[in-house]
């Protein structure tokens, strides 16, 4: 599933640009890396996801092409690491510039675009953030973090349909990404008033996160209680109309 999804990456408009400015071998390698990476390559929160480093064994290229690809990927990784460092050190402007430059040079990677989206969102630049996350998911439709950010920003803008769609895509890409389940649960609970759907998502979030979030446990209990009350009320109403 992940492989198929990622092969589609080359069909996006930006891939033409990539093909023009990067050697063919690098392009194929990028595709292969994405295609072979599977779910673990798309970092769920807190995980130390695989970095785009050595090509997998299935790559078959000439030794010269391999060397060029490796050099270029090493460069992207090094620049990404440096930008991340700036971000962690709260050097927002510098980090933003570094990610922007990286995104310009490697638009096929969703990492810099996602990081940029996060920085824009944190800087209250909602539209720019939305655009950045949209590019990120276009570059990598399996980027559950970017989808989840999109969902959250859509909900903030009261675009509940867009939010639900984005969270669902995050879950489709990574069903074990707990944050997407939590946010979708909150959307159903608070915004869409669909308690049964909210209950399902909260329960999944708790299962994935090891039942650690006690507040979510409370919300589950409350939804369960109101569900029981609704059922009882429905039974009473049904009794009332029984001849």
């Amino acid at each position, binding site marked *: 599933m992940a492989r198929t999804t990622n092969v589609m990456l080359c069909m996006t408009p930006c891939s033409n640009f990539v093909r023009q400015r990067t050697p063919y071998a690098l392009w194929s390698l990028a595709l292969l*890396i*994405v295609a072979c*990476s599977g779910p673990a*390559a*798309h*970092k769920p*929160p807190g995980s*130390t*996801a*695989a*970095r*785009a480093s050595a090509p997998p064994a299935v790559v078959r290229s000439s030794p010269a092409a391999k060397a060029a690809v490796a050099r270029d990927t090493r460069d*992207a*990784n090094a620049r*990404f690491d440096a930008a*991340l460092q700036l*971000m*962690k050190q709260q050097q927002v402007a510098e980090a933003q510039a570094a990610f922007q430059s990286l995104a310009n040079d*490697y638009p096929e*990677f*969703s*990492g*810099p675009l*996602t*990081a940029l989206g*996060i920085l824009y*969102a*944190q800087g209250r630049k909602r539209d720019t953030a939305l655009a950045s996350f949209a590019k990120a998911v276009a570059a*990598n439709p399996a*980027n559950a*973090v*970017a989808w*989840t*950010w999109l*969902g*959250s920003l859509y*909900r903030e803008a009261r675009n509940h349909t867009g939010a639900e769609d984005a969270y669902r895509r995050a879950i489709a890409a990574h069903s074990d990404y*707990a*944050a997407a389940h*939590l*946010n979708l649960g*909150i959307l159903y*609970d*608070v915004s869409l008033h669909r308690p049964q759907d909210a209950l399902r998502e909260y329960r999944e979030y708790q299962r994935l996160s090891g039942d650690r979030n*006690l*507040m979510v*446990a*409370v*919300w589950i*209990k*409350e939804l369960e209680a109101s569900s029981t009350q609704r059922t009882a009320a429905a039974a009473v109403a049904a009794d009332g109309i029984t001849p």
Partner: protein
Amino acid sequence: MALKNYPQAAAVAQRALDDGKGLSPELRRYDMAVVADAHFAQGDYAQAERDYTALLNSGPGDTSETMLARDQLAAAIYRQAEQARDAGNDAAAAAHFIRVGKVAPQTAIRANADYDAAASYAALKQWASAADVLEGFRQRDPQHRLIGDVDRRLADAYQQDGKPKLAADAYMRLAQRDTGTPAQRRDAAWSAALLYDGANQPIMSQQAYERFLADASAPLDQAQQARRRLADIAGNITHDPQRQQSWLEQIVSRDRQAGNASSDRSRLLAAQASLDLGRKQAKSARQIALALPLDKTLMQRKQATEAAIARLDEAARYGFADVTTAATFELGSVYREFGRAILESTRPRTLSGEALAEYELLLEEQADPFEVKAIQAHETNLGRMRQGVWNDWIRRSAGALMELAPGRYGKNDQRDALYDSLL
């Protein structure tokens, strides 16, 4: 008759009566009495009843003869009742026993007959009839040696008949009577109290519980329950807060005095009493507004708050989940309200402008630690979910946390602040 040859005696006397000639009225009554006594002695009580009735109707005799005949008439009916009862015919037995009172109301056996009639009605589960007979007994002869048993049977009949108030009245009479052991009187008071409660007669129930507690040897659990009920009546019915406070404090102190002899029930009641005392204290604290002069009102509020906290801590320490979570929620509320009171305190009139702004900043600094303590208390409650505890107090603590720290405990989206994959 002297030879106990009753058939012969009856036959001879009857012959004399049948001849009739020359018999004086006295002799006639004598023969009638012989016939009746002979039938009675042979166990033919129905015939004896007819004979004694005829004797009594035969004209005025001397008083002692009449009284004797009436007693014998009553006895003849009573014996018929006994025979019916022994044959398992309670309905007939009851009817005969009742007839004793109707035919010979002034006889000594009438009280026994009424008592036995009530027993027969009880066997038939005719509780209202049983109660009617016993009430008649009680009113006619309140000093009778059986009166204690009458009240016991009355209480039972009224209980069975769904009349708790009347049953409680009967138990209360038993509790107040000098007869019976102290334990019996105490138990009767306890039954009366419970029945008055069931009959929604709190004032009567208060008297019954107090009478129950008058016996110092009352079992601890029951005594604690009685004190609890008395506290509730004082709090909710008679609106006597001092009395309520006194009963609640007694529950706590009696449990403490019991030491190792205390029971789970007593400890639970003591925990609940501590919680109630803490809540009362918190309510008192809440009513002290931080008005000018602030140093005075602040001191009063602080003392009241500390007293509430001590009580609530005590309640929580008993370790009963429901009480502990309730006490913890109240603790959180007390801290929160104290912080809020500081923020809402009356500002000194002399302050304005920058000085006032600085003063308000100072107030916020003073209030903040109480909000932190409130959050900690509610977090403690929330943490009890890990031990499988869930109740309304934890739910309310969670609600308080959502208000106190919405950023941390609200329904906020989870957003990753970092994405460290290039892909």
